[in-house]
Protein backbone atom coordinates (compact mmCIF):
# COMPACT_ATOMS: atom_id res chain seq x y z
CA UNK A 1 0.00 0.00 0.00
CA UNK A 2 1.22 3.48 -0.81
CA UNK A 3 -0.70 5.89 1.40
CA UNK A 4 -1.27 9.54 0.55
CA UNK A 5 -2.56 12.68 2.18
CA UNK A 6 -6.04 13.70 1.15
CA UNK A 7 -5.12 17.37 0.89
CA UNK A 8 -2.24 19.68 1.60
CA UNK A 9 -2.92 23.06 3.15
CA UNK A 10 -0.44 25.90 2.71
CA UNK A 11 -0.81 28.99 4.87
CA UNK A 12 0.47 32.51 4.22
CA UNK A 13 3.03 32.06 7.03
CA UNK A 14 4.34 28.82 5.47
CA UNK A 15 4.90 30.57 2.15
CA UNK A 16 6.59 33.56 3.79
CA UNK A 17 9.02 31.25 5.58
CA UNK A 18 9.73 29.29 2.39
CA UNK A 19 10.16 32.47 0.32
CA UNK A 20 12.73 33.75 2.79
CA UNK A 21 14.69 30.48 2.71
CA UNK A 22 14.53 30.37 -1.09
CA UNK A 23 15.80 33.93 -1.52
CA UNK A 24 18.80 33.12 0.64
CA UNK A 25 19.35 29.88 -1.26
CA UNK A 26 19.49 31.69 -4.60
CA UNK A 27 22.14 34.03 -3.21
CA UNK A 28 24.21 31.24 -1.61
CA UNK A 29 24.09 28.72 -4.44
CA UNK A 30 24.02 31.10 -7.45
CA UNK A 31 21.14 29.06 -8.88
CA UNK A 32 18.62 30.77 -11.20
CA UNK A 33 15.39 29.29 -9.93
CA UNK A 34 14.16 27.05 -7.16
CA UNK A 35 10.82 25.24 -7.22
CA UNK A 36 9.11 23.27 -4.47
CA UNK A 37 6.63 20.69 -5.70
CA UNK A 38 4.90 17.56 -4.52
CA UNK A 39 5.24 14.11 -6.04
CA UNK A 40 1.89 14.45 -7.76
CA UNK A 41 3.33 17.36 -9.78
CA UNK A 42 1.75 20.36 -8.08
CA UNK A 43 3.70 23.57 -7.65
CA UNK A 44 3.93 24.55 -3.98
CA UNK A 45 6.35 27.49 -4.10
CA UNK A 46 8.93 29.04 -6.39
CA UNK A 47 11.57 31.70 -6.40
CA UNK A 48 13.75 33.21 -9.12
CA UNK A 49 13.04 34.48 -12.61
CA UNK A 50 10.88 31.53 -13.69
CA UNK A 51 7.29 32.53 -14.45
CA UNK A 52 4.47 30.90 -12.55
CA UNK A 53 3.17 29.36 -15.77
CA UNK A 54 6.53 27.74 -16.54
CA UNK A 55 6.96 26.65 -12.92
CA UNK A 56 3.58 24.84 -13.10
CA UNK A 57 4.70 22.92 -16.21
CA UNK A 58 8.17 22.25 -14.76
CA UNK A 59 6.53 20.83 -11.61
CA UNK A 60 4.35 18.40 -13.58
CA UNK A 61 7.28 17.23 -15.69
CA UNK A 62 9.81 17.09 -12.84
CA UNK A 63 7.46 14.91 -10.79
CA UNK A 64 6.98 12.67 -13.85
CA UNK A 65 10.72 12.38 -14.41
CA UNK A 66 11.30 11.63 -10.74
CA UNK A 67 8.59 9.01 -10.70
CA UNK A 68 9.99 7.32 -13.84
CA UNK A 69 13.47 7.36 -12.29
CA UNK A 70 12.11 5.62 -9.23
CA UNK A 71 10.63 2.82 -11.29
CA UNK A 72 14.14 2.43 -12.70
CA UNK A 73 15.49 2.32 -9.13
CA UNK A 74 13.06 -0.45 -8.22
CA UNK A 75 14.12 -2.48 -11.24
CA UNK A 76 17.71 -2.16 -10.05
CA UNK A 77 16.82 -3.26 -6.54
CA UNK A 78 16.90 0.21 -4.94
CA UNK A 79 13.91 1.48 -2.96
CA UNK A 80 14.21 4.87 -4.62
CA UNK A 81 16.75 7.34 -5.98
CA UNK A 82 16.84 10.51 -3.95
CA UNK A 83 17.99 12.85 -6.67
CA UNK A 84 18.16 13.21 -10.42
CA UNK A 85 20.20 15.67 -12.44
CA UNK A 86 19.97 16.74 -16.09
CA UNK A 87 22.79 18.64 -17.72
CA UNK A 88 22.34 20.90 -20.73
CA UNK A 89 24.68 23.13 -22.69
CA UNK A 90 23.75 26.20 -20.69
CA UNK A 91 20.99 25.20 -18.28
CA UNK A 92 20.79 22.31 -15.83
CA UNK A 93 18.17 20.98 -13.45
CA UNK A 94 18.72 19.17 -10.16
CA UNK A 95 15.70 17.44 -8.61
CA UNK A 96 15.96 16.05 -5.10
CA UNK A 97 13.72 14.51 -2.50
CA UNK A 98 12.98 16.67 0.55
CA UNK A 99 10.57 14.36 2.32
CA UNK A 100 8.57 11.32 1.19
CA UNK A 101 6.06 13.48 -0.71
CA UNK A 102 7.95 16.65 -1.58
CA UNK A 103 10.60 17.46 -4.20
CA UNK A 104 12.90 20.38 -4.79
CA UNK A 105 13.89 21.37 -8.34
CA UNK A 106 16.80 23.74 -8.80
CA UNK A 107 17.54 25.31 -12.19
CA UNK A 108 21.03 26.70 -12.68
CA UNK A 109 23.50 27.69 -15.36
CA UNK A 110 27.14 26.77 -15.76
CA UNK A 111 28.31 29.64 -13.57
CA UNK A 112 27.05 27.76 -10.53
CA UNK A 113 29.15 24.71 -9.63
CA UNK A 114 27.15 21.49 -9.24
CA UNK A 115 28.86 20.81 -5.90
CA UNK A 116 27.48 24.06 -4.51
CA UNK A 117 24.01 23.30 -5.89
CA UNK A 118 24.04 19.91 -4.18
CA UNK A 119 25.45 21.22 -0.93
CA UNK A 120 22.94 24.05 -0.64
CA UNK A 121 20.06 21.87 -1.86
CA UNK A 122 20.76 19.46 0.97
CA UNK A 123 21.03 22.31 3.43
CA UNK A 124 17.78 23.98 2.38
CA UNK A 125 15.97 20.63 2.44
CA UNK A 126 16.86 20.40 6.12
CA UNK A 127 15.62 23.95 6.76
CA UNK A 128 12.34 23.39 4.91
CA UNK A 129 11.46 20.11 6.59
CA UNK A 130 9.99 21.67 9.75
CA UNK A 131 7.73 23.88 7.58
CA UNK A 132 6.57 20.84 5.60
CA UNK A 133 5.95 18.88 8.79
CA UNK A 134 3.89 21.77 10.08
CA UNK A 135 1.89 21.78 6.83
CA UNK A 136 1.22 18.06 7.09
CA UNK A 137 0.48 17.93 10.82
CA UNK A 138 -0.73 21.43 11.65
CA UNK A 139 -4.32 22.24 12.50
CA UNK A 140 -6.30 21.82 9.31
CA UNK A 141 -8.49 24.76 8.46
CA UNK A 142 -11.46 22.72 7.30
CA UNK A 143 -13.74 24.49 4.81
CA UNK A 144 -17.14 25.19 6.32
CA UNK A 145 -20.36 23.62 5.06
CA UNK A 146 -21.41 27.02 3.71
CA UNK A 147 -18.18 27.33 1.77
CA UNK A 148 -18.60 23.87 0.30
CA UNK A 149 -22.18 24.56 -0.70
CA UNK A 150 -21.20 27.91 -2.22
CA UNK A 151 -18.53 26.22 -4.30
CA UNK A 152 -20.99 23.70 -5.70
CA UNK A 153 -23.56 26.39 -6.48
CA UNK A 154 -21.05 28.56 -8.29
CA UNK A 155 -19.24 25.89 -10.33
CA UNK A 156 -21.99 25.93 -12.95
CA UNK A 157 -21.24 29.59 -13.62
CA UNK A 158 -17.64 28.75 -14.43
CA UNK A 159 -18.57 26.67 -17.48
Amino acid sequence: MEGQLSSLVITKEDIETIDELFSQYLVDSQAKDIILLNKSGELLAKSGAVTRESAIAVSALAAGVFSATNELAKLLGEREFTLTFHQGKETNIHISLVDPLILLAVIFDNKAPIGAIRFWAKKISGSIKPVLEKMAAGPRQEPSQDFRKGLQDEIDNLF
Partner: protein
Amino acid sequence: MSLIDFSKSEITFKVVYYGPAMSGKTTNLSWIFRTIPEKVKGQFTSIATETERTLFFDFLPVELGTVKGFKIRLSLYTVPGQELYKLTRKSVLKSVDGIVFVADSNRDRREDNIKNLADMFKNLEDYELPDTPIIYQLNKRDTPAIMSVGELVDDLQLKGKAVYLGIASSGVSVMECLKGITHQVVSKI
Protein backbone atom coordinates in the same frame (compact mmCIF):
# COMPACT_ATOMS: atom_id res chain seq x y z
CA MET B 1 -4.39 15.38 -3.25
CA SER B 2 -6.11 18.72 -3.43
CA LEU B 3 -3.85 21.62 -2.66
CA ILE B 4 -5.34 24.48 -0.65
CA ASP B 5 -3.06 27.50 -0.76
CA PHE B 6 -4.27 30.21 1.60
CA SER B 7 -1.38 32.49 0.66
CA LYS B 8 -2.71 32.79 -2.89
CA SER B 9 -6.34 31.88 -2.12
CA GLU B 10 -6.22 28.98 -4.54
CA ILE B 11 -7.44 25.40 -4.56
CA THR B 12 -5.87 23.01 -7.05
CA PHE B 13 -7.32 19.64 -7.98
CA LYS B 14 -5.69 16.90 -10.00
CA VAL B 15 -7.93 15.26 -12.59
CA VAL B 16 -6.67 12.35 -14.68
CA TYR B 17 -8.15 11.14 -17.96
CA TYR B 18 -7.71 7.37 -17.89
CA GLY B 19 -8.62 4.73 -20.46
CA PRO B 20 -7.28 2.33 -23.07
CA ALA B 21 -4.96 3.35 -25.89
CA MET B 22 -6.51 5.54 -28.60
CA SER B 23 -9.80 5.97 -26.72
CA GLY B 24 -9.64 9.77 -27.00
CA LYS B 25 -8.07 11.00 -23.76
CA THR B 26 -5.69 13.44 -25.44
CA THR B 27 -8.53 14.47 -27.79
CA ASN B 28 -10.56 15.50 -24.71
CA LEU B 29 -7.71 17.64 -23.43
CA SER B 30 -7.04 19.16 -26.85
CA TRP B 31 -10.71 20.13 -27.14
CA ILE B 32 -10.64 21.76 -23.71
CA PHE B 33 -7.45 23.59 -24.68
CA ARG B 34 -9.05 24.92 -27.88
CA THR B 35 -12.36 25.82 -26.25
CA ILE B 36 -11.50 27.64 -23.06
CA PRO B 37 -10.48 31.32 -23.11
CA GLU B 38 -6.79 32.17 -23.50
CA LYS B 39 -6.49 33.85 -20.12
CA VAL B 40 -7.58 30.84 -18.08
CA LYS B 41 -5.44 28.15 -19.63
CA GLY B 42 -1.83 27.32 -19.04
CA GLN B 43 0.76 25.64 -21.19
CA PHE B 44 -0.38 22.41 -22.87
CA THR B 45 2.45 19.95 -22.36
CA SER B 46 2.35 16.75 -24.33
CA ILE B 47 4.99 14.08 -24.43
CA ALA B 48 4.13 12.09 -27.53
CA THR B 49 5.99 9.74 -29.82
CA GLU B 50 6.36 10.46 -33.53
CA THR B 51 3.12 8.56 -34.11
CA GLU B 52 1.44 11.08 -31.81
CA ARG B 53 0.46 8.57 -29.20
CA THR B 54 0.97 9.69 -25.65
CA LEU B 55 4.24 8.39 -24.32
CA PHE B 56 4.35 9.79 -20.84
CA PHE B 57 1.40 12.06 -20.18
CA ASP B 58 -0.32 15.22 -21.37
CA PHE B 59 -0.69 18.03 -18.93
CA LEU B 60 -2.97 21.06 -19.03
CA PRO B 61 -3.43 23.46 -16.12
CA VAL B 62 -6.74 25.32 -16.20
CA GLU B 63 -7.97 28.16 -14.02
CA LEU B 64 -11.73 27.84 -13.80
CA GLY B 65 -12.46 31.10 -12.04
CA THR B 66 -13.02 32.47 -8.57
CA VAL B 67 -15.52 30.99 -6.18
CA LYS B 68 -16.01 32.36 -2.67
CA GLY B 69 -12.75 34.28 -3.02
CA PHE B 70 -10.77 31.17 -3.99
CA LYS B 71 -9.35 30.59 -7.44
CA ILE B 72 -10.25 27.08 -8.56
CA ARG B 73 -7.50 25.48 -10.59
CA LEU B 74 -7.49 22.09 -12.24
CA SER B 75 -4.40 20.16 -13.28
CA LEU B 76 -5.60 17.93 -16.10
CA TYR B 77 -3.52 14.88 -17.01
CA THR B 78 -3.88 12.00 -19.41
CA VAL B 79 -2.15 8.64 -19.07
CA PRO B 80 -0.63 6.59 -21.88
CA GLY B 81 -3.15 3.86 -22.63
CA GLN B 82 -0.82 1.34 -24.21
CA GLU B 83 -0.18 -1.84 -22.24
CA LEU B 84 3.56 -1.16 -22.24
CA TYR B 85 3.18 1.94 -20.06
CA LYS B 86 1.53 0.33 -17.07
CA LEU B 87 3.97 1.84 -14.58
CA THR B 88 3.66 5.32 -16.08
CA ARG B 89 -0.12 5.07 -15.77
CA LYS B 90 0.23 4.24 -12.14
CA SER B 91 2.64 7.08 -11.41
CA VAL B 92 0.42 9.69 -13.10
CA LEU B 93 -2.46 8.51 -10.91
CA LYS B 94 -0.55 9.40 -7.77
CA SER B 95 -2.55 11.73 -5.50
CA VAL B 96 -5.38 12.03 -8.00
CA ASP B 97 -8.55 13.89 -6.93
CA GLY B 98 -10.84 12.78 -9.74
CA ILE B 99 -10.87 10.59 -12.84
CA VAL B 100 -12.59 10.77 -16.20
CA PHE B 101 -12.49 7.23 -17.59
CA VAL B 102 -12.63 7.44 -21.39
CA ALA B 103 -13.89 4.16 -22.83
CA ASP B 104 -13.74 3.32 -26.53
CA SER B 105 -17.21 2.34 -27.80
CA ASN B 106 -15.84 0.26 -30.68
CA ARG B 107 -16.72 -3.40 -30.34
CA ASP B 108 -13.20 -4.56 -31.09
CA ARG B 109 -11.92 -2.56 -28.08
CA ARG B 110 -14.17 -4.34 -25.62
CA GLU B 111 -11.42 -6.30 -23.86
CA ASP B 112 -9.14 -3.25 -23.73
CA ASN B 113 -11.80 -1.25 -21.89
CA ILE B 114 -12.37 -3.98 -19.32
CA LYS B 115 -8.67 -4.59 -18.79
CA ASN B 116 -7.81 -0.91 -18.51
CA LEU B 117 -10.61 -0.25 -16.02
CA ALA B 118 -9.43 -3.15 -13.85
CA ASP B 119 -5.89 -1.78 -14.04
CA MET B 120 -7.16 1.62 -12.86
CA PHE B 121 -9.01 0.16 -9.87
CA LYS B 122 -5.96 -1.89 -8.91
CA ASN B 123 -3.80 1.27 -8.97
CA LEU B 124 -6.34 3.20 -6.87
CA GLU B 125 -6.36 0.35 -4.38
CA ASP B 126 -2.56 0.39 -4.18
CA TYR B 127 -2.64 4.12 -3.48
CA GLU B 128 -5.44 3.64 -0.91
CA LEU B 129 -7.74 5.91 -2.91
CA PRO B 130 -10.86 3.75 -3.23
CA ASP B 131 -13.28 6.68 -2.92
CA THR B 132 -11.86 8.75 -5.78
CA PRO B 133 -14.69 10.31 -7.79
CA ILE B 134 -14.90 8.80 -11.29
CA ILE B 135 -17.07 9.68 -14.23
CA TYR B 136 -17.27 7.67 -17.41
CA GLN B 137 -17.26 8.90 -20.98
CA LEU B 138 -18.30 6.32 -23.56
CA ASN B 139 -16.43 7.86 -26.44
CA LYS B 140 -16.44 7.52 -30.23
CA ARG B 141 -20.22 7.21 -30.47
CA ASP B 142 -19.95 8.35 -34.11
CA THR B 143 -17.96 5.36 -35.32
CA PRO B 144 -19.69 2.49 -37.21
CA ALA B 145 -19.06 -0.72 -35.24
CA ILE B 146 -19.93 0.46 -31.75
CA MET B 147 -21.35 -1.42 -28.81
CA SER B 148 -24.70 -0.34 -27.42
CA VAL B 149 -24.74 1.79 -24.28
CA GLY B 150 -26.39 -1.09 -22.42
CA GLU B 151 -23.60 -3.49 -23.38
CA LEU B 152 -20.91 -1.06 -22.27
CA VAL B 153 -22.71 -0.35 -19.00
CA ASP B 154 -22.92 -4.11 -18.31
CA ASP B 155 -19.32 -4.78 -19.34
CA LEU B 156 -17.84 -2.02 -17.23
CA GLN B 157 -20.42 -2.34 -14.41
CA LEU B 158 -21.55 1.25 -14.71
CA LYS B 159 -25.13 0.90 -13.55
CA GLY B 160 -26.03 3.91 -11.42
CA LYS B 161 -22.76 5.70 -12.20
CA ALA B 162 -22.17 8.99 -13.99
CA VAL B 163 -21.99 8.07 -17.69
CA TYR B 164 -21.64 10.48 -20.63
CA LEU B 165 -21.88 9.62 -24.33
CA GLY B 166 -19.05 11.32 -26.13
CA ILE B 167 -17.61 12.24 -29.49
CA ALA B 168 -14.52 13.98 -28.17
CA SER B 169 -13.20 14.83 -31.65
CA SER B 170 -16.13 17.20 -32.14
CA GLY B 171 -16.45 18.18 -28.50
CA VAL B 172 -19.58 16.18 -27.65
CA SER B 173 -19.76 15.84 -23.84
CA VAL B 174 -16.16 17.02 -23.32
CA MET B 175 -17.02 20.08 -21.27
CA GLU B 176 -19.91 18.25 -19.58
CA CYS B 177 -17.47 15.61 -18.33
CA LEU B 178 -15.10 18.29 -17.06
CA LYS B 179 -17.95 20.04 -15.29
CA GLY B 180 -19.21 16.75 -13.84
CA ILE B 181 -15.86 15.75 -12.39
CA THR B 182 -15.24 19.27 -11.07
CA HIS B 183 -18.49 19.09 -9.06
CA GLN B 184 -17.44 15.75 -7.66
CA VAL B 185 -13.88 16.65 -6.69
CA VAL B 186 -14.98 19.90 -5.09
CA SER B 187 -17.53 18.03 -2.97
CA LYS B 188 -14.67 15.99 -1.47
CA ILE B 189 -12.65 18.83 0.08
